[in-house]
């Protein structure tokens, strides 16, 4: 969010409020879940992610992290457990549905639609008014660098990369407080992918499940290791660096073995925000 280029996808909550000392002390939880069970992939996972954290999830096995993201996004039904996202228990559009967005490995975009049509559909489903929708669509297209010509042509003409950019724009158009990512933007060049995922906004919580953590360098403030039976590690990215371990599945696994108990203290809000 591009500060300098104008605020990108702002929410109605004033920045000043989020920067107050009381907000930092309260450390509101953006994503909270407990006892999540998903057909053997997760068997009772509990996790609490404060507002503003940029969290890299690595699974051991990799399906564990994906399963968690997909449960939070509503694509997989948990057989047990409780979830609370953006401070709400209700997953409908009147609950957290409007505040949470998901982008996965499959763009899910109909190839005959134009990026603008996809974004219009996304804003319609969010129930945004026309002027507001137009503003948000223009900003999302600008962030994802979909030029006006490409925005009016069918997505199939732009290949997978355009479909993935469009999917990201559709996820951002609602200005989500929580962005859930699962190995996104596979077809986009690495440097551009990094730029696209470096989403500004101190109160935006981003959780990304990755099979290739090496690709996510510089994007996240914290890292977590998810195993089927629970969370094995939740630590600031700096701990990985200070331990001299690489940002890789093996490095994160080694850090988890050094820190005996999972889920260290929840970091202060300002710390998570600074990591952007």
């Amino acid at each position, binding site marked *: 969010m591009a500060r300098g280029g104008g605020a990108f996808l702002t929410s109605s909550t004033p920045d000043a409020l989020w920067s107050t000392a009381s907000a930092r002390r309260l450390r509101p939880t953006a994503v909270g879940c407990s006892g999540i069970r998903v057909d053997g992939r997760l068997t009772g996972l509990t996790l609490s992610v404060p507002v503003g954290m940029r969290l890299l999830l690595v699974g051991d096995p990799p399906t564990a992290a994906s399963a968690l993201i997909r449960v939070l996004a509503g*694509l*997989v039904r948990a057989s047990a457990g409780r979830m609370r996202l953006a401070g709400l228990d209700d*997953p409908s559009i009147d609950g957290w549905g409007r505040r949470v967005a998901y982008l996965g490995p*499959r763009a*899910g975009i109909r190839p005959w639609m134009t990026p603008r049509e996809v974004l219009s559909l996304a804003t319609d489903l969010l129930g945004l008014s026309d002027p507001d929708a137009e503003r948000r669509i223009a900003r999302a297209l600008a962030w994802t660098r979909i030029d006006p010509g490409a925005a009016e042509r069918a997505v199939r003409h732009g290949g997978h990369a355009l479909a993935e950019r469009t999917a990201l724009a559709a996820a951002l158009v609602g200005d989500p407080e929580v962005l859930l990512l699962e190995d996104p933007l596979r077809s986009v060049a690495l440097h551009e992918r990094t730029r696209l995922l470096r989403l500004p906004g101190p109160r935006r919580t981003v959780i990304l499940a990755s099979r290739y953590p090496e690709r996510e360098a510089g994007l996240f403030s914290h890292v977590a290791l998810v195993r089927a039976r629970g969370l094995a590690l939740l630590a600031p990215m700096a701990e990985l660096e200070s331990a001299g371990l690489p940002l890789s599945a093996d490095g994160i696994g080694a850090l988890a073995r050094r820190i005996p108990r999972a889920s260290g203290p929840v970091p202060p809000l300002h710390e998570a925000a600074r990591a952007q």
Partner: protein
Amino acid sequence: MSHTTVVAWLALRELWISFRLLLILVAFVAGGTVATFVARGASVTLEWLALGLAVAVALTGAMAAWSMAEERRSGRAGWLAARSVGRGSIVAGWLGAFGIAALAGLVAAATLVWVAVAPLLPQLTPAGYAAAMAAIGGWCVTVVASGLVVGIALPVPLAAAVVTGAIGAGVVVAAWSWSVPEVVPGAALPLLARAAEMPALAGPALRAAGMSLAMAAVMTVIARALLERVEL
């Protein structure tokens, strides 16, 4: 606009762009056209119409299965679900889209045949004929809903094959005997085939329509329940 309407409109556009809508319409109209211009004799025309409609309905069911399986595989159903579109709305939207396409084709085929056979079969009343077509329409909705169930449960090619095979087998059995109890969904086809010999078609056809619609409702509920459980 409700989420179901949004999904139905998207599905109709998807069917149109991919020529599936055209294929459905052509299948129904071809059934009516062949029966009208190739079959000899009014009673034979109705038999051919019944067979033609059976083939068109089987094709529609297979496409429903294929479409739903493809929606899941491609992540498009997940895209909608991640935007709080209810899974029930996804089922209802696709059912509506296929229903609209199939019913439009059915009305065209039925009208064509009616124009040809009505003067030759005075005992065939408009009400009886319309009731038979309503029953076939109800059966078509049942088949589409069954196709959605299969498409939710199975991967793409298998889903279409299962629906086509099941309906094809049913049609062969029905065509062999032309006598199916009215309580069986699809009984309208034998009724239509024997319409020239039946003094009162409306009553049995309406009972068949009722049974078909009831079965369609059951299959829709099953499709919704199944989609609620699967991963998108």
